[in-house]
């Protein structure tokens, strides 16, 4: 099965990032429809009817989320989450860099739908050049009257600011994103209240991923039925999938949801190098529990990945072939979350730290098989016990690796121990034990 290019249609057309080319191929016609003739409630209805689910990771219905925002005169906000920091994910980068106006159009329409007057694109600071492209496109859109006061004579106002982050994975978490956008350290907030009720500056806020918002103009132009005609019943539309790791043609591919995973990894991305086979893969970014070579025939959809005990997440497939050491992979994964934990909640701050230390012991040959049980129990004690899911995002993949590849961990422990030079030197082992609480 080939790609189904909707968002990717002619994406490499020269000059697409400029207003002229975007408009020449029909761009900004949906915004005309939306601001001239459609009422906001009907927009929400169309989005909900299309079945569009969030493309950032959680897969929540965008229409439903939009309908949660209260009506009324209070100041409301829209935030486009372009923080894209989930390891393995790089779709929004390509979409924004090559077709920024489609995102701006989607934001303007969505802002109208929920009644937001201020919209922000929160883009990770590492994507400096992409942000430059967005800045230029936003300026063009203001010039053309698609942003600002009285858009297309509708009396409606939408201001759009491109906000560059400064390097923090946690800011992709929606409440941390809001704190960061308010000029603070990016710590997650307690939920509820959810951002739809009390978000940016305390006002109702709609937060959606880049790819989700870019689908909105298409749904408005072509109708929800067209969108539902693609994908599966519960996973409608197309999805941009980022495939990376041990594949021969890594990159972004746009597919209809429900395509067999094997076809994505082998037919589109070329599969592992000759003579190698898929051993382990993340179906939805590094936060997703891993799957194995036996799971390749699963359809790639929100529901099938959930049934398999994992998740579609941001649509990032990372493939490890049979040369990849799973304990090393677990360590690399855990180190990332340890580095990125904001430190607010103890289970995450300490759990990621100790998981890294234990996995380092596994790799160095200082562990015993019993440590694997401790690693597993640490993961279980993180899940569900923090304000946000960053800790869970380590616990799920690491826990799944220990569970599914336990014998490899045990072999790695034995091998590393045999290879270790002499007895292990424990610092302070010859000193008298320190008794806590003894003050003399």
């Amino acid at each position, binding site marked *: 099965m080939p790609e189904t290019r909707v968002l990717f249609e002619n994406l490499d057309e020269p000059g697409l990032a400029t207003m002229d080319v975007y408009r020449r191929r029909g761009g900004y016609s949906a915004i005309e429809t939306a601001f001239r003739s459609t009422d906001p409630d009907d927009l929400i209805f169309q989005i909900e009817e299309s079945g569009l689910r969030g493309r950032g990771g959680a897969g929540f219905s965008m229409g439903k989320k939009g309908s949660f925002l209260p009506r009324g005169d209070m100041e409301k906000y829209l935030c486009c989450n372009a923080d894209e920091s989930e390891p393995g994910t790089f779709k929004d980068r390509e979409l924004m860099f090559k077709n920024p106006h489609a995102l701006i159009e989607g934001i303007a329409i969505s802002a109208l739908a929920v009644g937001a007057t201020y919209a922000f694109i929160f883009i990770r600071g*590492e994507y400096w050049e992409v942000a430059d492209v967005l800045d230029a496109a936003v300026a063009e859109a203001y010039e053309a009257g698609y942003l600002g006061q009285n858009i297309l004579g509708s009396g409606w106002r939408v201001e759009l600011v491109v906000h560059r982050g400064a390097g923090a994975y946690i800011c992709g978490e929606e409440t941390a994103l809001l704190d960061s956008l308010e000029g603070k350290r990016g710590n997650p907030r307690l939920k509820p209240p959810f951002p739809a009720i009390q978000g940016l500056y305390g006002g109702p806020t709609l937060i959606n991923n880049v790819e989700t918002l870019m689908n909105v103009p298409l749904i408005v132009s072509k109708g929800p039925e067209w969108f539902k005609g693609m994908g599966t019943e519960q996973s409608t539309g197309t999805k941009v999938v980022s495939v990376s790791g041990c594949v021969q043609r890594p990159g972004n591919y746009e597919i209809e949801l429900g395509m067999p995973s094997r076809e994505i990894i082998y037919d589109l991305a070329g599969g592992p190098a000759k003579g190698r086979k898929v051993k382990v893969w993340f179906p939805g970014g590094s936060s997703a529990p891993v799957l194995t070579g036996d799971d390749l025939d699963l359809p790639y959809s929100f529901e099938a990945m959930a049934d398999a005990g994992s998740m579609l997440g941001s649509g990032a497939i990372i493939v490890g072939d049979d040369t990849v050491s799973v304990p090393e992979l677990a360590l690399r994964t855990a180190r990332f979350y340890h580095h990125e934990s904001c430190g607010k909640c103890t289970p995450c701050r300490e759990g990621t730290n100790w998981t890294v230390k234990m996995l380092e012991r596994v790799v160095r040959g200082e562990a015993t098989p019993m440590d694997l049980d401790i690693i597993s129990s640490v993961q279980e004690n993180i899940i569900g016990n923090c304000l946000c899911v960053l800790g869970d995002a380590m616990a799920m993949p690491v826990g799944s690796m220990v569970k599914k590849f336990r014998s490899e961990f045990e072999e790695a422990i034995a091998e590393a121990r045999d290879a270790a030079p002499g007895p292990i030197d424990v610092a302070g082992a010859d000193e008298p034990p320190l008794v806590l609480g003894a003050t003399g």
Partner: protein
Amino acid sequence: MTGQSGNGGPMKPTDLLTNAERAELIGSMTPSDAEGIPELHEVDVPPELQETIENAMGRYPQLRSASIPALWAVQRHYGWCTPDGIRQAAAVMGLTPAYLQSVASFYDLFRLEPTAKHRVLVCHNISCWMQGADDILAEFCEASGADHHEAEHDGANSPDGEIFVKGFECLGACDIAPMASIDQQYYGPLEPGDAAEIVERLRRGEDPAPDKDLRKRKLAGDNA
């Protein structure tokens, strides 16, 4: 009240304090020499920096949202977030320097120490690691003379002050793994041997790797 903050005497659990005792305790913990909001005339802020920060403040419904843009402006002006630069931004924004410092220290891209002219951030996350990123990082250190251990953690400057090397978490370009962000542009896939040439080209002030520039890359499906 004695003993709560000074020397000697038993400590009392804070939830047993009277309101007056609590107020005194809090008062005793606030150092009287903490720096307040600096006045503009005290900081000698360069006019173009002040203008950039004020423009940023004007774009948001609430001024404090301009904290990160202001710190970016400081970093671009001075090369890193210098203490003086942070004080200047604080004066323009009406915040304390300590507040801006606390924000700056949260984010990986803000540098709070002197940082070399060219910045090489080498991704060492999962996909890049699978494709040999650790060797690429080691090569950048060897070619530039930056300390490898430091580069893996907080980043390290080369002895000549030209190149800053840091192992970085996923930069969002796994399609060109292993890759690096060099002076805020993405290059990859890097191969063994590339680092030495890139470092040389940076020292000569040239484009580090024109044929590995991500901007030239087409959709993966069209490369097949």
